[in-house]
């Protein structure tokens, strides 16, 4: 993909390549600084949520479901997944990213091949159920929408559907993979 784009660019506009690379790495740097300040707030809040025992409460509520979908038994992993999914549902992408990283590190066995729960977490995060797409509603309002929230219901239906589809497909593919390995 990268090679193809490089070749394309060399034909079209060779002088722009380094420029493009430098501009985007500069914007990656500013993005990281922004993320850093966002993570300071969220990791601080999350630490309080953890220390007060609130995350255990949330995890207990979601435990049966997580056990069934992810097939993990470790309570800390279950707790991290529960927190990641709840942050995702509320549309708090910035809070859910550090939680997902933590959860994956907890599930990591040092193998080069991703295990079933890790794949499931990645795919479910990709389709995540959205109760409130806050950023999108704000953008619509700014563009002069009269009923900015009327996308909430279709978004919810779509994400519920794709999440169920994701769970089914991951299970199906893992069966095929295990069967072929044999």
């Amino acid at each position, binding site marked *: 993909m990268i090679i193809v784009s490089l070749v394309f660019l060399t034909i079209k506009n060779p002088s722009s390549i380094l420029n493009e690379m430098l501009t985007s*790495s500069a914007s990656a740097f500013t*993005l990281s600084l922004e993320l850093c300040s966002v993570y300071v707030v969220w990791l601080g809040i999350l630490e309080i949520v953890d*220390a007060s025992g609130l995350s255990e409460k949330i995890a207990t509520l979601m435990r049966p479901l997580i056990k069934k979908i992810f097939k993990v038994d470790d309570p800390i992993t279950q707790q991290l997944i529960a927190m990641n999914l709840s942050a995702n549902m509320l549309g708090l992408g910035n809070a859910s990213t550090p939680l997902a990283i933590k959860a994956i590190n907890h599930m990591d066995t040092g193998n*080069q091949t991703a295990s079933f729960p890790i*794949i499931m977490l990645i795919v479910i995060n990709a389709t995540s159920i959205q109760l409130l797409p806050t950023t999108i509603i704000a953008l619509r309002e700014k563009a002069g929408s009269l009923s900015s929230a009327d*996308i909430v219901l279709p978004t919810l239906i779509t*994400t519920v559907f*794709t999440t169920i589809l*994701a769970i089914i497909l991951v299970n199906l593919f893992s069966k095929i993979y295990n069967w072929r390995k044999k």
Partner: protein
Amino acid sequence: MSIYILPIIFIFVFCYAFCKKVNAYETFVKGAKKAIPLVVDIFPYIASIMIAVALLRASGITESLATLFSPLFNFLGIPSQLVELVFLRPFTGSGSYALLNDILLQYGADSYISRCACVILGCSETIFYVTAIYLSKTKIKKLLYAIPVALICSLVGSILACLLCKII
């Protein structure tokens, strides 16, 4: 409504911590400390992905792909105006939000196209970027079927989104 959600969550968390006799300030500082190492860890991944996406966009490949696949997407019920958004979305969050903003301004915030675009964005994720960051601290190289499944689900989501916006 939605603007009150976050403040309510924050108030609830602090009240709960107070009831449980947790020192909120010290605990917050303890958590906040972890932010800088985390960002240092994921920065190389963010930078590499963003450089790759910039090259991809500048080369015009996403646009050519969009034109190429436009008939197929039309057949599946996705309007041509939204094909580039569907293609861009797995790679870049900021890029697709910028494109959404253009669509909103060009077609009007309450038009069918704009509503579809909003739902498509709401039900999908920057798959490549997020995956690279999630795995940044592990040795995992082989993801097996994770990316294809995520992409299939996003595409199905986009098709469903365009269908639902017609009905609702």
